[in-house]
């Protein structure tokens, strides 16, 4: 990518959304109130949707907005309100200074690790082979078609299993979340 010509506006927007995403994420993890945190997370997701679009994954960007920001986060907020946890409690749920320091340290260590790993040459057995028949996305072949093809051919079984998973999750959520009648026993 780096050897390609990158238009200035494209690059500006990319960095802009990236910085907003980082800032929102930081705000998200530091908010006391769950509602505020959730709002900042939604913001992160919007930024990511934008980035997806810029990375020639328009369909993913669309469902990012619809599924994540629109559905999953709404469920979160719904639960927060259902349990009446909307405002920060008397005691912060944040850990003490030591916990925060350690967490920061772990985070830094992870980043460093990723940097080192990026320069590491792994043994052949550990590297993934390119999947045959799936060429790079060229952005001209339409938005949905390139994804739909593999999804309903190579990954059909996985796709169907995912549907099973969703069904199970729905049933499970209903069963778990159902208020038990104390007299039922």
């Amino acid at each position: 990518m780096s050897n390609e010509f990158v238009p200035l506006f494209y690059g500006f927007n990319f960095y802009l959304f990236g910085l907003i995403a980082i800032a929102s994420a930081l705000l998200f993890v530091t908010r006391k109130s769950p509602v505020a945190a959730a709002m900042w997370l939604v913001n992160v997701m919007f930024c990511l949707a934008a980035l997806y679009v810029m990375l020639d994954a328009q369909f993913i960007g669309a469902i990012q907005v619809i599924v994540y920001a629109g559905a999953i986060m709404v469920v979160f907020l719904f639960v927060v309100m259902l349990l009446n946890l909307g405002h920060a409690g008397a005691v912060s749920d944040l850990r003490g200074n030591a916990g925060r320091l350690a967490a920061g340290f772990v985070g830094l260590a992870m980043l460093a690790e990723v940097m080192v790993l990026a320069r590491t040459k792994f043994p052949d057995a550990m590297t993934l082979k390119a999947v045959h028949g799936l060429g790079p996305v060229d952005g001209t072949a339409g938005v949905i078609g390139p994804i739909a093809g593999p999804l309903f051919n190579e990954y059909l079984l996985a796709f169907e299993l995912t549907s099973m998973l969703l069904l199970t999750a729905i049933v499970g959520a209903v069963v778990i979340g159902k208020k038990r009648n104390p007299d039922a026993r």
Partner: protein
Amino acid sequence: MLAESLALSALLFTIGVVGVLTRRNAIILFMCVELMLNAVNLSFVALSKVHGVGGQVFVIFVMTVAAAEAAVGLAIIIAIFRHRQSVNLEDINLLKG
């Protein structure tokens, strides 16, 4: 823009991790996990530009699983809250055998 995307992904993932480690509220913890998943999704999408559309297919799977996880996880949180009147993880040690 691959390198920048991956760097952003790593950064978001790390923030998610730090969030998981620092928060005690179960719901916020869940959200942090969602953030981490999103970070991973970003790298998938970025890499699909080079390695093929499989990455995007995978993102769809991840989202599905995330949705399922959110549904079940939140149901569990509700159940626990009914039982303990708290979503603070320090109060919850049901995993202990």
